[in-house]
């Protein structure tokens, strides 16, 4: 693909994005505006994440893309192929082999190392937007650390549902300063936001980049009498028998038959290769897939 | 307690050709502790005007109106508010209250404003209302719907709830039946007894003679009317 610059974007644009990323890393959780470019895919398909990936990829990188934990959905496959073509980088589905992982709405089950980068696709970067429509006002609230409104949302949850019903995009406070939307990951993943890897968040339509440097304190907001609780389906994976992973629920027939399986396909496959078999599973390699 | 020296007042009606109407000139009066002085004079002579000047409701153009050590003629609004709260009571002919407030609360308010505990204030209010023969079934209602006589008695109860050292009474016994009139006179005497300095306007001559120590004819201070 000599028709394109390495990783599609021109070098000036990548420099601009890298500056935004560095600023984001320097001010953990702070939303840095950047001049988001038109990408050859529609907004909502991960244009923010793709631009961040393009800016951090080097020819030596190994790239992995997951969509809700899965490597094999349309969105994940498209983005992976995009960088295969425009950057010529190696790709993988194995979390441990990847140096850059772009994700939509999940954090891999396997702990990341300090030589790995996790790039999130973010639809709405502003956690305060739910209650305060004015961008001028939300920026002021961030700069003055006026975060009472965030708890109003949690209060509303408890008063309406008896518990904090926010199950994804659960707001966090980063390094005791900025309140941040971790993108629509399930709150099960929130504890994993404190990790060894670098986490970069890109919102293409909203033109914002923010970041969490390695080993940064990330606290999920809560009330003293309603503490934060990461939740998942109370079940083991029906394929690999894992009890510690986030599960998707599938309706498998017209009789209402259900199947719980790991949302992280690489994690599930790895366990099955190791010989773990769930309630409805078969040994690895013997199923149709 | 009350010392009025050489006060004057005139109204300027800007919207009626800036007509200047002098209404009071050179008025002087002293009322000692425990003394009751009646203001007399024909209608329009300025009895109510003088009362209102003493209360700070009308501005005084010149002269001094000392209540204790406060000169109402020159005091700042907040000093007059303080004076009205702690020192100077006023029972007017008309009841002016917030609609919807219960009669008990209306009567207890001067006590609450001076820091009396709620239960004690209500207790005093109940005693006063009972003494003035306001039926108990009315106590929880707003006095705005009461008859003229009832309103008048609520007004008196309110005016006497707190023991002001100085009291202004504007026709306190008007529209009262003999029994209640006697009660009110008794209350005024009690106020005198505890040392209140009182200035009153009474059209009820018998009442005036019964409780007032002196009379002051304000006609002599009324420009145009003075003989």
């Amino acid at each position, binding site marked *: 693909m000599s028709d394109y610059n390495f990783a599609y974007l021109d070098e000036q644009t990548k420099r601009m994005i890298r500056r935004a990323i560095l600023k984001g890393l320097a001010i953990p959780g702070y939303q840095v505006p950047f001049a988001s470019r038109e990408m050859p895919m529609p907004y909502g398909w991960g244009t923010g994440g793709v631009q961040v990936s393009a800016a951090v990829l080097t020819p030596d990188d190994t790239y992995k893309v997951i969509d809700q934990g899965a490597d094999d959905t349309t969105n994940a496959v498209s983005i992976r192929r995009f960088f295969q073509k425009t950057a010529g980088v190696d790709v993988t589905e194995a979390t441990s082999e990847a140096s850059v992982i772009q994700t939509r709405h999940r954090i891999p089950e396997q702990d990341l190392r300090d030589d790995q980068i996790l790039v999130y696709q973010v639809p709405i970067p502003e956690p305060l937007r739910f209650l305060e429509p004015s961008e001028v006002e939300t920026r002021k609230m961030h700069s003055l650390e006026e975060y009472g409104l965030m708890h109003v949302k949690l209060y509303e949850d408890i008063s309406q549902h008896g518990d904090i019903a926010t199950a994804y995009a659960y707001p966090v406070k980063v390094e005791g300063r900025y309140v941040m939307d971790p993108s629509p990951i399930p709150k099960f993943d929130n504890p994993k936001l404190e990790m060894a890897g670098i986490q970069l968040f890109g919102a293409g339509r909203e033109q914002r980049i923010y970041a969490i440097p390695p080993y940064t304190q990330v606290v999920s907001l809560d009330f003293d009498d309603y503490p934060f609780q990461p939740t998942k389906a109370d079940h083991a994976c029906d394929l690999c028998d894992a009890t510690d992973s986030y599960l998707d629920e599938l309706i498998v027939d017209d009789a209402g038959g259900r199947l719980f399986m790991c949302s992280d396909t690489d994690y599930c496959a790895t366990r099955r290769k190791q010989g773990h078999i769930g309630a409805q599973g078969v040994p690895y390699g013997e199923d149709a897939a | 307690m009350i010392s009025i020296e050489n006060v004057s007042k005139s109204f*300027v009606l800007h919207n009626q050709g800036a007509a200047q109407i002098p209404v009071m000139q050179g008025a002087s009066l002293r009322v000692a502790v425990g003394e009751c002085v009646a203001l007399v004079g024909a209608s329009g002579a300025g009895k109510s005007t003088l009362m209102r000047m003493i209360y700070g409701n009308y*501005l005084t153009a010149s002269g001094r109106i000392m209540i204790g050590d406060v000169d109402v003629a020159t005091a700042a609004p907040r000093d007059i508010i303080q004076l009205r709260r702690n020192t100077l009571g006023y029972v007017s002919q008309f009841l002016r209250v917030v*609609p919807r407030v219960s009669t008990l609360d209306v009567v207890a308010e001067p006590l609450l404003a001076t820091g009396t505990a709620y239960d004690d204030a209500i207790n005093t209010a109940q005693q006063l209302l009972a003494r003035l023969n306001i039926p108990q079934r009315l106590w929880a209602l707003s006095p705005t719907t009461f008859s003229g006589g009832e309103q008048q008695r609520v007004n008196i109860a309110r005016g006497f709830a707190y023991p002001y050292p100085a009291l202004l009474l504007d026709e306190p016994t008007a529209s009262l039946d003999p029994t209640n009139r006697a009660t009110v006179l008794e209350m005024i005497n009690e106020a005198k007894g505890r040392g209140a300095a009182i200035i009153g306007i009474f059209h009820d001559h018998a009442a005036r003679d019964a409780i007032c120590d002196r009379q002051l004819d304000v006609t002599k201070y009324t420009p145009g009317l003075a003989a």
Partner: protein
Amino acid sequence: MTPLLQVENIAKFYGARIGCTDVAFDLYPGEVMGIVGESGSGKSTLLNCLAGHLTPDRGAVRFDTRTQGLRDTVTMSEPERRMLSRTDWAFVHQHARDGLRMNVSAGGNVGERLMAVNARHYGDIRAKAIDWLGRVEITEDRIDDRPTAFSGGMQQRLQIARNLVTAPRLVFMDEPTGGLDVSVQARLLDLLRGLVREMNLSAIIVTHDLAVVRLLADRLMVMKDGHVIETGLTDQVLDDPQHAYTQLLVSSVLQV
């Protein structure tokens, strides 16, 4: 005694036009001051300058802060000023929808100011919200309803509860009874009077309704064309007005 608010020579211009000018007064703890005047007289401009919503072109607005005594709120930093407006100050808007979050429940509306000063116990926040709703005569079973389901009078009472929950010392009110039915107004006025006394609140009330200031305000300031033309005790200004305009204003009120 130190004044709670000391206003010195405030002026605000809109280009060549005068918003308000040469305004000065002291407000003491527990005092309620009314500002009256017709539309365009500058009373709302003045209120917004005092409450930090507008920056005056001249003058000082000194507030007796809890920790540092009198501080000029015009020159203090924005975070400090915003902190004041969440804690020691309250602002009651004429239209409840300007002062409420219409998509948040009544309890959430009242609780917001508590959470803004770091209340983090849901049970406590809710108990306080219930207590305050009760004080403004909204029953507990409405706590999870949104203000959109409330009548105009209830919305206004909710706004007051939301403002007073942090026990402010100074309340700014912009036509608090405007647009309400007369019977609803009376109830609200009664409520406000009670709260002002119980909490020893100081308040500045802007209104064009002379009956409102007669019932609520100790002192009165009459404005015309951006200037203060008369001040004094409320009943004195209303019963013995000195300035031609005040006389006109008072005599224009319909008697009932």
